[in-house]
């Protein structure tokens, strides 16, 4: 969808972005100040790159060689800003209509985002979550070919995030609109992204499927080490409120409900996993995944990282002390069971694959 290769120089900041994105949701993931928002602004035409080229689909947005710089209002891009940026002097309906094209179906989008009751209100009288929903609706009604979202959930608390996330998921699933999603929250990325671009210090450090990119680039110590597993929801036990998911290496029990048959991504923190040399019994842990030790990374730190290749091929990072490695005599190739507490897999960490 997007082919970008450009540089943007600013007094204390140098950005060099080179990437292509596919359909679906592409997450730009990285720490604050890494240049994620600048990339979005360059695509939207709100900031002009020093040199390079940006193409979206068939339309050339920017090409320094051809001295081409398409004006922002001709780029047909929907942009959802972190703080919504609703026009304060217009009602919700006025905001929605602002960029609306005749082709777009207002009622469908109003229904989808649950905006019916808000239409007459002024933006100052909306809650943070409502504002963000209106901003999403406003962007969609301009009939964009591409949606840019700059940390749309960052200013919201967890409850409000839960309110918005399903709407963003339905954009992806119902409108087939390519989305570029900036975030520094790994849970959002895991839940939404089809592709991840890791951005750090103005460079794209890695790109690819979330499972691989997140797992291999979160070891920097900047983030909690996290592994991403894919599993299919099998059944829900309403008595205990637990969903059982099927993974080739074993069954995974998680708190909360997931639709059966739903393929999900689960993020597991390395510190939440325990290694055992035998299948567990007489223990409270419900989830035990079978695999073989692929590698053991030992540093000066008392804690080492063991990479376990699970049956079926996915890799799980486990934090254990160096002492435990010696006491258990852990070694490469050894068969182990990875024990994960159900409560450690928070519902927030679930995403549909």
């Amino acid at each position: 969808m997007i082919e970008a290769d450009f540089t943007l120089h600013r007094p204390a900041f140098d950005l060099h972005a080179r990437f292509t994105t596919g359909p679906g949701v592409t997450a730009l993931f990285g720490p604050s100040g890494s240049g994620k928002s600048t990339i979005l602004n360059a695509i939207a035409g709100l900031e002009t790159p020093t040199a390079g080229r940006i193409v979206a689909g068939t339309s050339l947005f920017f090409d320094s060689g051809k001295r081409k710089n398409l004006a922002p209002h001709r780029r047909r891009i929907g942009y959802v800003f972190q703080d919504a940026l609703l026009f304060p002097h217009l009602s919700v309906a006025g905001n929605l209509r602002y960029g609306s094209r005749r082709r777009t179906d207002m009622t469908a989008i109003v229904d989808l985002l649950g905006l019916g009751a808000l239409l007459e209100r002024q933006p100052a009288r909306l809650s943070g979550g409502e504002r963000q929903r209106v901003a999403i609706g406003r962007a969609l009604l301009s009939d964009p070919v591409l949606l840019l979202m700059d940390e749309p959930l960052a200013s919201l608390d967890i409850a409000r995030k839960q309110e918005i996330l399903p709407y963003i998921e339905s954009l992806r699933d119902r409108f087939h609109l390519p989305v570029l999603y900036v975030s520094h929250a790994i849970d959002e990325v895991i839940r939404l992204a089809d592709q991840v671009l890791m951005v750090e210090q103005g460079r794209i450090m890695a790109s690819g499927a979330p499972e691989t990119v997140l797992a291999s680039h979160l070891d920097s110590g900047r983030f909690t080490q996290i592994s991403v597993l894919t599993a299919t929801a099998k059944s829900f036990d309403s008595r205990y409120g637990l969903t059982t998911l099927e993974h080739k290496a074993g069954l995974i029990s998680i708190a909360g409900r997931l639709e059966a048959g739903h393929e999900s991504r689960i993020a597991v923190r390395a510190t939440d996993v325990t290694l055992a040399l035998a299948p567990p019994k007489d223990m409270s842990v419900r989830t035990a995944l079978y695999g073989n030790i692929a590698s053991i990374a030992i540093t000066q730190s008392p804690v080492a990282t063991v990479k376990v290749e699970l049956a079926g091929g996915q890799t799980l990072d486990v934090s254990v002390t160096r002492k435990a490695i010696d006491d258990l005599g852990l070694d490469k190739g050894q068969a182990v069971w990875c024990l994960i507490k159900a409560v450690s897999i928070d519902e927030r960490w679930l995403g549909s694959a």
Partner: protein
Amino acid sequence: MNFTPEEWTAILLSLKVASIATLCALPIGTGLAWLLARRDFWGKTILNGIIHLPLVLPPVVTGYLLLLAFGRRGPAGAFLDQCCGIVLSFRWTGAALAAGIMGLPLMVRAVRLTIEAIDSRLEHAAATLGASPLRVFFTITLPLALPGLVAGSILAFAKALGEFGATITFVSSIPGETQTIALAIYGLTQVPGGDAAALRLAAVSIVISLAALAASEVMARRLSRRIAGFA
């Protein structure tokens, strides 16, 4: 109060001159304020200086410069006379021009401050929704800058109403043509027995100024309330 016909003429002329001056300065001032607030261009500092010149120059100098430029023999004056038959010198239109030029810096300052206070990302958001720069200006910038436009207009109107030095230099003090309240009061204080009439006109200008100020307060409050969503 019973005004003499001469006094009525001065009052109505003052209102006419100040209103026309303000109405003409409003679009020009708003455009200049937008340029200064939102654009970077070569000569911005010079433009800003020229706009503010009437504020710092002695009004007599401004009036004299206007006379040189817009007098019948001045380059601008001769051009306007030949092309459109507009004569400014010693006419009420000239008084309006002098008043407008004296009020312009106040107008530009007020509007520029309001435009600078508008989050420019709102304008960016409008652009991403497909709005051309012109549409962004008229649908986002201008409505949000309305309180500043009102404040600037009142300041310019008040300045125009009280303008003396530039007006008397440029268009003299001709009763019924260029003699506004301020010039009439000055004239009355120069003749014996004019004190009572001067005082009456002074009271009139106080009333007009206070009314304008009150109107601007009410309008500004109503506008900002509407923007905040409590209308």
